[in-house]
């Protein structure tokens, strides 16, 4: 089964990358339109195969992986999709 995990910083936690990318998109470019980019958030995405018989089983496994390794739940939250 294919799993896809998105990890973002929790709301309220300073997203230094998002801030920097937004600044670059707004300020560095000479291209029309980029100035209008706002609310940039940068996160991580992981894709992998996981062996499981049902989607629910896979999802439970992947959540466990997120809690233990893939996300730092002190400052990050995650979403899991399996297909």
């Amino acid at each position, binding site marked *: 089964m294919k799993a896809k995990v998105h990890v973002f910083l929790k709301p309220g*936690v*300073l997203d230094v990358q998002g801030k920097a990318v937004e600044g670059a998109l707004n300020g560095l470019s000479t291209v029309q339109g980029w100035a209008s980019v706002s609310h940039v958030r940068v996160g991580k995405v992981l894709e992998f195969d996981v062996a499981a018989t049902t989607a629910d089983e896979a999802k439970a496994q992947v959540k466990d992986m997120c809690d233990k390794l893939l996300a730092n739940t002190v*400052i990050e939250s995650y979403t899991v999709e399996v297909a």
Partner: protein
Amino acid sequence: MTTTTAPKPKSMADYAAEFGLKPDEYQVILDRLGREPNYVELGVFSVMWSEHCSYKSSRLHLKKFPVTGDRVICGPGENAGVIDIDDGQACIFKMESHNHPSYIEPYQGAATGVGGIMRDVFTMGARPVALLNALRFGEPDHPKTKRIVEGVVAGIGGYGNCVGVPTVAGETNFHSGYNGNVLVNAMCVGLADADKIFYSAAPEPGLPVVYFGSKTGRDGIHGATMSSAEFTEDSEEKRPTVQVGDPFAEKLLIEATLELMATGAVAAIQDMGAAGLTSSSVEMAGKGGLGITLDLDKVPQREENMSAYEMMLSESQERMLAILKPGREADGYRVFEKWGLDAAVIGETNTSGRIILTHKGEVVCDLPLAPLSDDAPLYDRPWVEPKCEPELKLADIPAPANLNDALLAMISSPDMSSKRWLWEQYDRHVMADTLADSSTGHDAGMVRVHGTKKALAVTSDCTPRYVLANPYEGGKQAVAEAWRNLTAVGADPIAITDNLNFGSPEKPETMGQIVRAIDGMAEACRELVFPVVSGNVSLYNETNGVSIPPTPTVGAVGLLKDYDQRAGYNSLKAGQVLLLIGA
């Protein structure tokens, strides 16, 4: 004025307890004010009277340290200590802990610790030139240790490397006593012109108060009170929002601050550390014997609908507060714009002797400054003579059966084994003035004083095992070892900073360790003419009622007048004579 924005059912006394104020402390607040404080005011009191800001348990004993000397330009009490290194140059340095945050979120905790100590140094006008770190972790095979070590080391490197200050020395110990409470002590050393040192006291009324750096968010609210509270298992759940460091912002902040200072516009300046806006504004106005008003609507804010309470207690990183000379705002804005920093004039100094905060058109805090700092509680905590282990007699120690095995056991022990894995993650060479670092075979780090033949030697030392066995002797030993490490590279030892990490001062046993370790350190400092010019105290380092081994870390700085005279153990050759000096 309005009173409070807090939800109703709880009384102010309840909140006081929640914020870590003892009932008698709260009573003093009521007596001094002649009324109940509101929620914001209570927040301000709670951080200013926290152990972290007020040093209420340690202040009496810290007075034992010698703090003056021929080369001391500024001793404890400012953001960092300042010493004279000849030719009109000064060295500014300090050490600080970030223990609790590093346990909760090792990477960010350690990273923001490095950021905080650098701000203490450049806020006085110095360019940071060297970083050190003293780390104490739990046992290597404790389930949490590996993750914490990796995170802490990556965080220290991640921050210092990016800012571009070399991390040249440090120390690392492992002990089960730190399983639930690691210690991360970071030291920063900077260089300035001796006649261009900046202080925090507001010099006169009517001056603009300027905020610059990153925006304020809801980071680490109540960090100062938390770092002064004992840990329990479930405080891992109740953690406040963790502060995230932005070393890039810090780099810009260093350049902007030094550039702003060079324009001559700065009258006084202070970084926003623990309890950010509260402690910086209270201290600047209080030290100057003045008053201050702040309009919180002007504070650059990262999040929407922030309350006055949240802004005053936020520990968002990479922020500074400066008081400018009359009419110099334009100089400030030119510099801030160049470096892309948020900035705003948020208030003014005055003669009121009070801190007055307005938010959304209403006065949300109006407090006299004196009780916040001068009258902060001061405790002579009861203490008992700590239990010491009996002195070891050489004759009682059995000789090892096999010397080779003994040697191998020693050098493969966690404390003695190579720390290469760790310091290879630290940029030790940026600034192109490093003469000695963790990898070169010297007892202290050494950096050139840029453009001269002089060099600074820096070291950090403490052997917690010794202090646990005998706090007085262990305290002496830490100072003496720092002295030896400096002399061993050919430097003249000048002064020290310290970071006193202990358990709860409310326990007479622990208080005894604090008192006796300070006695020992003070004794060694007097004997060696090695004054203490800055320092930091971290108490309540306990988990489930068990204290860490007492760990008074000593950070020391020495001067080499000619670095060609430096020495190390990296140039040993076969056939040379070994001399043992001392007992």
